[in-house]
C-alpha cells in the first residue's frame, strides 16, 4: 500500500493522456476532481492487486459520455456513493476498493476522485492498459466477467441499474441512457473479486501512468526517449503535421493526420488513422503499428501528449508506439479490439515484430 497525493495525481493525468492514444477525453477534469477531493479528505490509498484478498469485492468506476459535455457539466462528486451501496447490497458484502476500467484518458483520474471522495482505496490495475471506446473492450470481458449489474448515476440523482444478457447489450443500452441523462453519467460496472482482479486485469497501470508523467515532467533533456525506455516502446516517426482531416461517422470523430518527416525521417511520410483514438499508423504506405498496440502523438520538444481533437497543422511531433498488454494479443481479444473490429481489413502484427523487420 502507498499513498497518492496531489503531485502523484498530476503525474498520473499526464501519463493517462499518453496511454489514452489520443482519445479517452482529457484527464484534466478528473484530475481536478481528485485534487479537490484530496484537499478535503486527504491522500488516496493505492493497493497492489496482490494486497486484495481473493474473495474481496472491488467495484470499478468510470464516466460514460462525451468529453465535451463532461468539461461543461462536471459531476456532483458523490454519484458513486449510491452505486456502491446498491452493488454492495446485491453482492452481499462491502467493497474494499475501486479501480479504473480504462488507464487512458479521463477514466484514469475519475476513479481517483471516487476513491478520495468515498474514502476507499484504489487498486493498481485497470481493464485495458490504454483507452478504448466501448464497454466490452476490456480484459475482464475476455475472461468472461460480466459488466452487469451495472449502475449509472447522473448528477441529478437519477440512477439506472442494468442487467443485460451480455456485455454488447450493456454497451448499447447504457450508451442510449447516457444521452437521456444529458450526455454524461458516472458508472460502476464489472464488479470483481480479488481473484478475478489478479487474473483478468492489466496490473500496475496507475504506477505506469504516474511514472510516465513523472519522466515527462522531470526529464527536460530527452523526455520522450526516457519514457520509451521505461514503457519498452518505439519511436515510430518524427515529423510535422501537414494535414488533418476529420469527419463524423455515427457519433465518432473519425479522421486522419498526415506527418511529413523531419530529421532522419526527412523525405518520408506517416499517416495516422483515428476514431477518437489513434488506430493505425502507416509509413510510406506500409503499416507500422495498429490497435491494440498503443499509438500516441507527443509534442516533439516537451513530450506532452496531443489528443486527436488537438491534432492540427504545423505541430512538430514524435509518434510513438507502445506494445499493448499481452492479454490483448489472443485471437479472441483481437476479435474485440483488433484492426478488423475498427474497419481495417489487416492482420494484427505486434509492434515489436513490425519494428524488428525494419
Amino acid at each position, binding site marked *: 500500500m502507498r499513498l497518492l497525493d496531489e503531485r502523484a495525481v498530476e503525474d498520473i493525468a499526464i501519463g493517462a493522456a499518453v496511454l489514452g492514444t489520443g482519445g479517452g477525453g482529457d484527464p484534466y477534469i478528473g484530475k481536478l476532481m481528485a485534487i479537490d477531493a484530496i484537499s478535503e479528505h486527504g491522500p488516496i490509498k493505492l493497493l497492489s492487486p496482490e494486497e486484495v484478498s481473493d474473495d474481496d469485492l472491488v467495484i470499478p468506476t468510470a464516466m460514460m459520455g462525451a468529453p*465535451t459535455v463532461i468539461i461543461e457539466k462536471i*459531476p456532483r462528486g458523490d454519484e458513486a456513493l449510491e452505486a456502491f451501496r446498491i452493488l454492495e447490497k446485491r453482492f452481499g458484502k462491502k467493497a474494499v476498493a475501486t479501480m479504473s476500467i480504462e488507464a487512458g484518458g479521463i477514466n484514469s483520474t475519475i476513479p481517483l476522485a471516487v476513491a478520495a471522495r468515498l474514502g476507499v482505496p484504489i487498486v493498481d490495475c485497470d481493464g485495458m492498459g490504454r483507452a478504448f471506446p466501448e464497454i466490452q473492450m476490456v480484459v475482464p470481458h475476455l475472461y468472461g466477467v460480466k459488466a452487469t449489474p451495472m449502475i449509472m448515476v447522473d448528477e441529478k440523482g437519477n440512477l439506472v441499474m442494468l442487467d443485460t444478457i451480455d456485455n454488447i447489450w450493456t454497451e448499447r443500452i447504457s450508451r442510449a441512457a447516457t444521452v437521456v441523462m*444529458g450526455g454524461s453519467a458516472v458508472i460502476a460496472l464489472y464488479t470483481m473479486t480479488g481473484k478475478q482482479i489478479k487474473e483478468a486485469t492489466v496490473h500496475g497501470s496507475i504506477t505506469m501512468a504516474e511514472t510516465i508523467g513523472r519522466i515527462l515532467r522531470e526529464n527536460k533533456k530527452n523526455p520522450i526517449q526516457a519514457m520509451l525506455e521505461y514503457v519498452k516502446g518505439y519511436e515510430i516517426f518524427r515529423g510535422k503535421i501537414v494535414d488533418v482531416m476529420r469527419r463524423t461517422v455515427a457519433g*465518432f470523430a473519425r479522421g486522419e493526420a498526415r506527418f511529413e518527416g523531419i530529421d532522419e525521417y526527412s523525405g518520408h511520410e506517416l499517416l495516422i488513422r483515428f476514431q477518437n483514438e489513434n488506430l493505425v499508423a502507416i509509413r510510406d504506405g506500409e503499416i507500422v503499428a495498429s490497435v491494440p498496440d498503443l499509438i500516441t502523438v507527443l509534442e516533439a520538444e516537451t513530450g506532452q501528449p496531443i489528443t486527436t481533437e488537438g491534432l492540427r497543422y504545423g505541430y512538430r511531433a514524435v509518434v510513438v508506439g507502445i506494445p499493448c498488454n499481452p492479454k490483448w494479443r489472443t485471437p479472441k481479444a483481437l476479435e474485440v479490439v483488433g484492426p478488423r473490429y475498427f474497419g481495417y481489413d489487416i492482420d494484427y502484427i505486434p509492434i515489436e515484430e513490425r519494428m524488428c523487420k525494419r
Partner: protein
Amino acid sequence: MPLRIGIDVGGTHTDAVILDEKNNLVYAVKTQTTPDVTTGILNALRDVLKGSDVDPEEIQAAMLGTTHCTNAIVERKRLNRVGVIRIAKPATLAIKPLRAFPADLREAVGNLWTIISGGHEYDGREIAPLDEKELREAARKMREQKAETIAICSVFSPVSTDHEKRAAEIIAEELGQNFPVTLSHEIGSIGLLERESAAILNAAVISIAEAAISAFENAMREAGLNKAKLYLTQNDGTLMSADYARKYPIRTVASGPTNSIRGAAHLTQLQDGIVVDIGGTTTLVGALVRGFPRESAVAVEIGGVRTNFRMPDLIAIGCGGGTIVRKTDSDVEIGPQSVGYDIVRKGLAWGGDTITTTDVALALGYAKIEDPRIDLNRLKNLDGNFLTRAVSKIISLVENSIDKMKTSPEPLPVVLVGGGGIIIPPSHYDKLKGVSRVIRPEHFQFANAIGAAIAQVSGEIDRIFTLDHMSRDEAIKQAKEMAIQEAIRAGAKPDTVQVVEVDEIPLAYLPGNAIRIRVKAAGALSM
C-alpha cells in the same frame, strides 16, 4: 471627411496613425512610451494631430489596445474582490470555483463563491430550475462579505443564456443597477471551469479597466477629439466600444500581436500568408488566414489560470533588432537577451561594447540607419566569418519559425513588419526556405497601430446543436446567421459582414445526434 486614429502602446514606443475613410494612411508618428502610459498616448495624439494638420473634429473614432488588465492580473495588483456565483447545482459540486487558481491569485480576488441550483444540459433542457431565492440570499451575503463585483457562470450558458441573464436581473434588484456583473457567456465558450475563470478574471479587473478607459477618454478630450468615440481592440483583432470594454475588459488581453498581423494584412492586401513582426527584443511569427490571425488551438493561461479565450497562434523567439550576438569557442550565439531600447548606448555602432543583431546588419552593410551617433568605423574589427555565421543563424531562426507556422509545404508569402526587420538581409528575401516572396510594405513600422485603426467588429457563437429536428447543413446555416446577427448587434455595418470562420466538432463518444459549431462573423465598424 471622417477619420480614425489607431494607437499602439509598445514597451519602447507609442505610435499613433490617422487613417481616412478608405483606410489610407494620412499621418503617423512615433513617440516615447511613458511609465503611466496615458501621458504617452496624449503626446502621441497631440503629435499626430499637429503633424497632420487635421482638424480634431474630423476624427470620429480612436482605437487602441491596452495592457492594463493583463498587467494587473500578472502582478496581482489592485484587483477587485469578486463574488463568484455558479449556477449548476446539483452538477459540478466535484470541483469548486477558483480551485484551478494559483493560491495567491485566489486570495487576491477574495475567494468568495457559492454554487446555486440551475443550469442547462447540452441540448438546452434545464438541469434544475434557477433557484431565485437561493440567488437573492447569495447576493446579499456577497455584499456583506464586501464583494465589489459579481461573476456569474451557469452550466452550458453558451447553449442557453437564460439562467445567467435572469440572475443578472435579480442581482441588479438586490445590489443595484450599477453593481458590476460579469456573465460568463459573454466571454468564454464551452468548458465550464475555463469560462468561469475567465469571468472571474474579468470581474477582478473592472475597476482597473474603468480607470484606464476614463483616462484614455480624458486624454482624447485634452487632445481636442470631441467627436471621436473610443474603441478598444480585442484578442481576436476586432473592436469593442468603450462601454462594452468597461463591462468585459478581459477581452483586451493580448490584442497587440493581433493588431500587427491585421495591420500587415492591410498594408499588403494579403489574405493568407505568414507575418513576421520583428521588434527590439522579440520576433513574433503568426499566420494570416483569410485576413485574420489564425487562432491558437490550445488552452491559454492568463496569470497562471487556464481559460478558453481564443488567442492568436504565435511563435515568439528571442531574436529582435537589439538582440545580443555572442562569440563562443566554436560557434555564434544569438540572444535571447536583448539590450532593447538601450541599443543607442550599448550597441557597438553607437559606441557601446555589446554586439547586437543590428550591429551585424550595419557591419555587413545591408542595413542603413540615419543616426548621427552611429560610427561604422567601430564595426571594422568584426571578423567576417563571425558576421556571416551570425546572419545565417538569424535567418535560420526566422525560417524555422515560419516553417512551424505553415500549414502545408506550399511556399507562402511572408510579410515583414516591425522596426527590427532590418536584421534580415534583403538579398535573402527570395532565398528563405518555404517562402514564395517577402513583402516589406511601406509604413511597415506602423503595422500595429494601423491594425488597431482598421479593426473590424465581430460576432461569435459557439454552441451545441442537436440534430434531432434539423440537418447538419441547417444547423450550420442557423449558426452562421446567428453569428452575423451578433456582429451587427456589436456595431458592424450589415452589408460588410462576412463569416470568417466555421468550426464543427462532433460530440465524441455520444451517438451522433449532436455537434458543436463555432462561427465567427466580422464586418466594418459602422460610423
